[in-house]
């Protein structure tokens, strides 16, 4: 399905068109379930989350028109946001460190995943200019929903150090992305 096709479906869902909702679900649920599985790393929770996410999509579809973004990015942002809420509610920061370190480290060489094309390449090019451990912290946060505490534990640095690290990385990223 093209981005235009998905945009149209979302607009029709805002009009309470259930056929469009069916079609939107068919064409996007696998991607959003992938987001849930990756972030929650638990199948049952991911299934519950996916239900909540489509209920939100049905209820929030009218807000898509005002969001200046691609439709699939908008949907993924809703899914990520919801999963991060679930994750934070499930794991109080003080008790989740052991579990967090069991999650696989994101691959050190994201460019090998060969999925980044066009515009999306830019973020990887810029991440590639960061120190490897710092790039991996940024990716771990975005893709796995790692919190500051988890990142600090994984990289064996104090929390404040992690904050400073991430802040410097984000400043560098911004310079590169906006260059």
């Amino acid at each position, binding site marked *: 399905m093209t981005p235009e096709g998905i945009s149209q479906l979302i*607009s*029709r869902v*805002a*009009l*309470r*068109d*259930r*056929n469009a909702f*069916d079609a939107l*679900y068919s064409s996007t*649920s*696998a*991607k959003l*379930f*992938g987001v849930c599985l*990756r972030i929650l790393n638990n199948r049952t929770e991911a*299934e519950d989350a*996916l*239900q909540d996410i489509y*209920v939100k999509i*049905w209820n*929030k579809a*009218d*807000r898509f*028109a*005002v969001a200046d*973004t*691609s439709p*699939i*990015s908008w949907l*993924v*942002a809703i899914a*990520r*946001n919801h999963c*991060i*809420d679930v994750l*934070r509610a499930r794991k109080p*920061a003080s008790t989740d460190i052991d579990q967090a370190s069991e999650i696989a480290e994101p691959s050190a060489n*994201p460019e090998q*995943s060969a*999925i*980044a*094309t066009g515009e*999306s*390449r*830019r*973020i990887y090019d810029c991440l590639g200019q960061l120190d490897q451990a710092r790039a991996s912290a*940024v990716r771990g*946060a*975005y*893709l796995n*929903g*790692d*919190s*500051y505490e988890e*990142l600090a534990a994984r990289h064996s640095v104090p929390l404040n150090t992690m904050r400073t690290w*991430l*802040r410097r990385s984000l400043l560098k990223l*911004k310079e590169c*992305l906006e260059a």
Partner: protein
Amino acid sequence: MSATHTHSTPPEDDDFVAAEYVLGVLSLAEKHNIERRIEQDVSFARLVARWQQQFDGMNAEFEPSIPPSDMKAHIDRRLFGTINPQPAPFFSNLVFWRTFAFASLILAAIGFGRDFLTNPSVSDKQLVASMESDGSIYQTLAVYNKASNQLKVSFVAGELPAEHSLELWLIAGKDAPASLGLIKSAQVTEFSVDSALAEKLKDGATLAISIEPVGGSPSKAPTGAVVAAGTVREI
């Protein structure tokens, strides 16, 4: 909206907080604070949107995975499961009462009112829909009189856009939206509903308004943003 835009550079700290929020590293309490701020602070919301766009490229790494086959049925049951709205929660619902009070006002204003206000059980049933939408400037009310087959849409908030048309749609059950025509006035527009659509204009159906090119949607379906929508209720 453009009036609120400023060209001043936001404080760097805000930009960093926006990036942290998009990355998702914050605690639940911090995250919810930021979410409230996004709703209220347009320039901050813009910083968040910008970081989201920068990070969107990584979305390709979320590997698609087919969800269980009964998942959609669960979602539908949650969203549409109650075929007939239960009277108790419906009548105790604040939105209902707001709509009701508001409907009474408009009914009086556009001259449908008397019988309805003094005797709600008259056989001549009326249908109303309060149409609005989060973040939209439009708030409208539709009143349909079955006996006269007359549908009136009145504006409570919002103006007619100069360079677009506003089109009214009926969505009945799982049908595709059907056009009822264009909104012609920022006060009251009257629509005559053809008999096929009149059949479908009943309790539970949805009325919605979309922004379309001048003269209306070039196709049979809405093409622009939905600026107001509401469920039709019999009163």
